[in-house]
């Protein structure tokens, strides 16, 4: 394998920057993030793409098979590495504030790859497909453990059985206050509504005294 022994980075060039229409204003001062999490093929990338003002981009992280830190071992050439990708999109909220949306697979081992993916996130959208509800159990448990507020969005595929919301709530063992909304990840308005329900839920959490 070709490894450089110096501290340089092997990268394919040329390096493109953002297209002119994808440039943020100089006044952009703060960014916030929301994580879209769900099983494989549940529509994460579609949802991100539907609401994003930029064509979704991909960031990746590499992971050694042994799971050890590359820095810990001079004999790196013996290790095989795996690349895991995460799609993301962007919505400019106003001249100063930018919202980023990250779509990530449900397993926790992927989350660890991105330093602080959930750290400082406003909240999360758990995207579920009623044909495979069971893949969401673990995700929901992990988010609860980490204290990340979330809403559940049920993506409607043609062959997906539809259940009354309260049946889904019981199946997913969700507390009464966690919103469950339907969505068509391909439609911008639908994706926007999902984000809105997350925001309304987050808003309600800032005011626990609310009647």
């Amino acid at each position, binding site marked *: 394998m070709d490894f450089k022994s110096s501290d340089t980075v092997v990268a394919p060039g040329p390096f493109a*920057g953002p297209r002119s229409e994808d440039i*943020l*204003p100089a006044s*952009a*001062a703060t960014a916030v993030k929301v994580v879209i999490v769900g099983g494989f093929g549940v529509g994460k990338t579609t949802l991100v793409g539907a609401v994003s003002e930029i064509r979704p*981009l991909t960031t990746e992280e590499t992971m050694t098979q042994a799971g050890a830190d590359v820095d810990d071992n001079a004999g790196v050439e013996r290790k095989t590495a*795996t*690349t895991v990708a995460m799609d993301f999109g962007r919505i400019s909220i106003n001249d100063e*504030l930018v919202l*980023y949306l990250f779509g990530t697979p449900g397993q926790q081992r992927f989350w660890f790859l991105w330093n602080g993916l959930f750290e400082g996130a406003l909240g999360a959208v758990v995207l579920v497909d009623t044909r495979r509800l069971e893949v969401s159990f673990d995700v929901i448990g992990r988010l609860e453990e980490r204290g990340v507020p979330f809403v559940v969005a049920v993506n409607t595929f043609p062959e997906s059985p539809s259940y009354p919301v309260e049946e889904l709530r019981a199946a997913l063992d969700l507390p009464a206050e966690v919103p469950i909304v339907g969505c068509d990840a391909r439609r911008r308005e639908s994706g926007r509504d999902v984000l809105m329900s997350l925001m309304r839920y987050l808003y309600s959490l800032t005011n626990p005294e609310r009647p």
Partner: protein
Amino acid sequence: MSDPDQEWDEGDPERLYVITRGRGGLSQRAALDLVTLIVARAEPHPSMQPEHAAILRMCHYPLSVAEVSAYLRLPMSATTVLIADLLADKRVEARAPVPKALLPDRALIEAVMHGLQKL
């Protein structure tokens, strides 16, 4: 989900990178979030490592660390090392995201809702 390994891309050896121990800026690197906004404060120079020059060019206007990683086609871990180099030399400015302790913040959530309504 039954066989997650099949979802993994095999790492291309050409894409792998090695960063020597003792590279500076570790604390700055740790402070870089996916959504920290990076803004160039210096011009790219031909003597620079090409990746550093590329970051200065693309961050003429604010750009998140995640976007820099995507455009460089480099993993986040390598991207943050490069940005930390530039931060240490004061060639870029980092605009940190809202600290976790301040979340959720009513005014912030209201602003986001207002922005989403325009979508």
